[in-house]
């Protein structure tokens, strides 16, 4: 199972890096929850997030807004994932790993954009693993420039 979970995370990162956001949405179940929180708030037990989608529809809207409405720095992302940890409790898979996202502009200048941890709940649906919940705790709480593309 661990390699199946690893495959899911890698697909997640690969689709984001390839800007295939619509395909990336397919990795989430309908009643999903997607949230990006800063470590600063988590440490103080404060609930505010940087991005919060408490339904699949909200996540779809985010992607649609990025495509149709929002203006942001032109960039590509490169995810590096590490230290996958997986446990299964009563049919729900809890998995986490560290991530680093490097962001590069059109001129090939790269910067470390964000580091932190994925904390996911994963379920099996129609035979394949899908994210039920993705909670991302970012150490890089001071967002560089802006945060458009999901982490």
């Amino acid at each position, binding site marked *: 199972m661990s390699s199946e979970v690893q495959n899911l995370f890698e697909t997640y990162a690969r689709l984001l890096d390839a800007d295939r956001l619509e395909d990336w949405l397919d990795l989430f179940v309908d009643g999903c929850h997607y949230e*990006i929180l*800063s470590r*600063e*708030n988590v440490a*103080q037990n*404060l*609930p*505010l*997030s*940087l*991005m*919060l*989608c*408490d*339904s699949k*529809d*909200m996540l*779809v*809207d*985010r992607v*649609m*807004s990025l495509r*149709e*409405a*929002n*203006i*942001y*720095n032109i960039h590509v992302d490169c995810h590096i994932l590490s230290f996958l940890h997986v446990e299964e409790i009563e049919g729900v898979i809890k998995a986490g790993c560290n991530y680093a996202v490097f962001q590069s502009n059109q001129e090939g200048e790269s910067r470390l954009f964000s580091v932190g941890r994925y904390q996911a709940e994963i379920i099996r649906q129609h035979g394949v693993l899908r994210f039920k919940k993705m909670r991302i705790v970012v150490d890089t*709480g*001071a*967002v*560089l*420039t*802006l*945060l*458009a593309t999901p982490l």
Partner: protein
Amino acid sequence: MNEILSRYHFPAADCSRIPYGMYRDAEIYGLEQERIFRGPVWNYLALEAEIPKPGDFRTVVVGDTPVIVDRAKDGTVHAFVNRCAHRGAIVQRQLHGNTKVHTCCYHQWAYDLQGKLAGVPFRRGVNGVGGLDDDFDPTCHSLQKLRVESLNGVIFGSFSDAVEPLEIFLGPAFVAQLRRLFHAPVAVLGYQRQRIFGNWKLYSDNVRDPNHGGLLHMFQITFGIARLSAKGGAVLDAEGKHNMSWAAQGAPAAGGGDDYQDTARGDMNIKLRDPSMLQYRKEFPDDLSLTIASIFPNCTFQQIGNTLAVRQFRTKSADEFEVVSTFFGYEADDAEMVKHRLKAANLAGPAGLVSMEDGEAVEIVHRAIVRDGDSHSVVEFGGKGPVKDQENLVTDVPIRGFWLHYCKLMGITPGGAA
């Protein structure tokens, strides 16, 4: 005139032309720390709700000066520069906490909650050898104090002995706006931080420019939620240094019609699948659903629907600043309202659906104005001449209000001879 200031020329007395160099020059930046942030102004520091108990503190930044804000045993609020009087180290290294004294880790000089030097280890040396001379007077080595005033739990600080009382500085419209937003005890929901690689004044211009709202931030336009032709405007204080851009819920401006056919994007009228975060739960006695109130020089109080926050601008250099936003609701909010505010927060901040563009807008200006410091940006929407309240959103007059006051404090005469 000061040699640094004489490098740039404001050709128009109404500040409808701003020289690019004012945004890029490191020495102008240095002068701003002295004349703006440490000048005759009140800087936003923190909310009393963040330091409710005696001994509670938070470390903040005024301009680029580190500052401690705390509450003393008697409940009074104090602020002082977070720099040891001994060797200049940061005294309080924690972001927040509760303490009896602020102790510098370097040589353990300790300061009480009012910033007074309360203890120096080995002041008498060891067995009469070493230590400080007998004429050392601890009362001369306190942390540098800021004047502090609080309005409805919003704490402001000043380095200036000359600044007028806070409420006079704010003026009636902004006192009213703070009383409106802080009409009841608030509960902090959390913080957001954004590091923008541009000059801080490009951001303070941005929050005084209602005209960009419906042209750069296309979320609301694209999804048919709001338009620049909505009922709205800008309120200024008597000097024009503060500005509140406002829009009212569901009220189109008289006359209808607008010019979106002239933009590349127009009205796409796409629908959101889950518009629940956009719902505005009326919570103030008026119809204002959007208020962006910017107080000279370092903060903005925002109400985007039910998303309430105060943004503190912290400068890093001429080329970088941080925006630290404190989001809040009210202690009396029920669980549903808290949930709604947290969801609606998707609209604001560095990842905000109606605000993320600001980071990019500031940076693309900052990059392009690297040269030609005496060329100018054009600030003429809403008309030239005297600065006054605006009854529509197609205006950038409040930017000129900021700059007129900025020039006054810096010692610049706009329109004067080069």
